[in-house]
């Protein structure tokens, strides 16, 4: 069945994604870490679909769609920021700081 090992792998990958988001200042790497977290969640959906039927697979579909939309809009925003600042270092992006 491989339910427990798959959920454990999902937990480890999610924690690695969180660590990456907290650790890096490069906006693109941060986005990639978010994709990693979404992948970890997908893995637990697929693992639990062995018990709960095809609904889990449908959810993975929707998560992938949201990930694609998020990547497209997020990368467009990054390009816009790069035009302004010539940098995508999150330390330099403080427009909203009061």
């Amino acid at each position, binding site marked *: 069945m*491989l339910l*427990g*090992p*798959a*959920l*454990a792998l*999902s*937990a*480890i*990958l*999610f*924690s*690695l994604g*969180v*660590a*990456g988001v*907290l*650790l*890096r*200042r*490069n906006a*693109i*790497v941060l*986005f*990639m870490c978010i*994709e*990693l977290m979404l*992948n970890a969640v*997908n*893995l637990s959906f*697929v*693992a639990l*679909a062995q*018990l*709960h*039927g*095809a*609904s889990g*697979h*449908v959810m993975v*579909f*929707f998560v*992938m*769609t*949201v*990930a*694609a*939309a*998020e*990547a*497209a*809009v997020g*990368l*467009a925003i*990054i*390009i*816009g920021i790069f*035009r*302004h600042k010539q940098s995508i*270092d999150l330390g330099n992006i403080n427009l909203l700081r009061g």
Partner: protein
Amino acid sequence: MTEVVFYIFAAIAVLSAALCILQRSPMVSALWLVSTMFSLAAIYVLLNAQFIAAIQVLVYAGAIMVLFLFVIMLLNLGDAGSDLRGPSTVAATLVIAGLLSVELLALTRYTPRRLANELSQWPTFTDPATVFVAGQVTQQESAARGVVGALAAPLFQVYLIPFEITSVLLLAAIVGAVVLAKRNV
């Protein structure tokens, strides 16, 4: 045999993910992330989700990562300096990620048998197969109608309206990306 293959691909996935968050160059990071996604696709096959595995390779490793690589090349970010945060943040990150992984790993102690025990009304009831019927039904369905057929029925019957709303989401994302990237924002 299945378990050996699973552990091999799980090790590759964890190692690639760790290298992805530790590499300095965004380009190398992206390639390690592609490696993680490929090994996850292999794991999906082992978990009886063959169609999801194909979609994973096509959409994630194909489309989304190509988008990332395009932006990295467009912005010419090949060799940036180290962008790790300071030592105090690194320590805090280790603590937070460690706590989170311990919490999530504790959840995996819920085996199907134990879940079945808690879900069923009778404490002596221990056969998970009779509680989680939906999984069995899906397996029979995919044996009878093929892997794609078993997934198409719920997608276009039960989840038809969310599926259609997804198209509106994608349209909004396309328009948003074009507007954001076209002119100075």
